[in-house]
């Protein structure tokens, strides 16, 4: 394979950041980034789901290819992701009920987070082997967490400043995301 694991990791983390360069997972990015306390756990939970989904998708893809059932790929990926989200939900509910309540509706919505399905689809499309898939999903998850934490920190500061009424809300968040994305473009070419 041409890309080393390290290159894939750096690429997914910075140069091709999932949120800011590839537009994956924008709903939680705009929805949960209000407070730093919830943004970080959300990022970690998503990363975990990504890792589990990527592992399962890798195994499943081998199975589907062996039986020539590629047209079932999308449907089976979705089912796998839904089950891993269920798993994370159960674990969180048991060990950290407070966090479980704080994440609220956004936890089951990880199922419809395109970043998770994106990991599975991209690793299939690019023919990554096992190690590459794992680093790709961890890098992507870390990148997602990084973007979420950055955004939450900026928005926490922003609540203290005086913003025109008109720009309040989503429009302002989008402009912020644009500026963040602009600065992430500086990493282009880093992963080689």
């Amino acid at each position: 394979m041409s890309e080393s694991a390290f290159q894939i990791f750096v690429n997914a983390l910075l140069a091709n950041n999932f949120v800011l360069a590839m537009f994956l997972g924008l709903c939680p990015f705009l929805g949960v980034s209000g407070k730093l306390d919830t943004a970080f756990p959300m990022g970690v939970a998503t990363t975990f789901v990504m890792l589990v989904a990527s592992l399962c998708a890798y195994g499943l893809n081998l199975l589907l290819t062996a039986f020539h059932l590629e047209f079932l790929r999308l449907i089976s990926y979705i089912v796998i992701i839904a089950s891993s989200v269920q798993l994370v939900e159960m674990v969180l509910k048991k060990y950290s009920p407070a966090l479980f309540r704080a994440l609220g509706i956004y936890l089951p919505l990880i199922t419809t987070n395109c970043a998770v399905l994106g990991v599975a689809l991209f690793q299939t499309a690019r023919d990554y082997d096992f190690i590459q898939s794992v680093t790709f999903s961890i890098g992507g998850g870390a990148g997602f967490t990084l973007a979420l934490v950055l955004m939450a920190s900026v928005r926490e500061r922003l609540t203290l400043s005086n913003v025109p009424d008109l720009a309040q809300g989503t429009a302002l968040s989008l402009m912020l995301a644009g500026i963040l994305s602009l600065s992430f473009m500086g990493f282009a070419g880093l992963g080689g």
Partner: protein
Amino acid sequence: MNTAHYKTWDEFTEGIWRQNPVFVMVLGMCPVLAVSVSAVNALSMGLATLFVLVCSCGLVSLLRRMVPKEVRIAVYIVIIATFVTAVDYAIQAISLALYDALGAFIQLIVVNCIILGRAEAHASKNPPLPAMLNAAGMGIGFAIGLFALGAVREVLGAGTLFGITLFGAGFQPWVIMVLPPGGFFVLGAWLLFFSWLERRKLRRAAPPMEAGQHV
């Protein structure tokens, strides 16, 4: 009869303007920002989503009495994934260039919140015809939103519309607009515009009571 007809029509137009999924509800942002680099891409993506939306809402509505409440989301997702797979193969057969340009985002229609949202909020409670009409309205609204974004980005970032050059040779393309940050900026600008429209409408309807409420 007349009022029923009016209500159905209202449900159809709701998605196009009043509840526009892109500009008012801000749903399904990922494909909106990712494929709106050019007007053609945006429009094809909008049409693909429209097709999936109408078909899956129709089927969900037909099956609404048979699906147990506990597993309904899983059932909806599988229905949606089926239609998306069909669209995926169809686009691949019609235009390979377009398929490469849209990339994984065709398959990512599955996780577009608009579709699941419509299935859950409307199609699961209404008979097939109104459900499909409502879905069609939403889909058209989504396509319009995508097109508005894609057209602006293509004109500013490449100086073309549908691949036709608009300006003379002296035009310097604003390249950032077709790059990722441009997507955020243009969508933010559209949202600002719509919130300004809303604000103006409110102010016309009821003049402000106190001086402090002036904007």
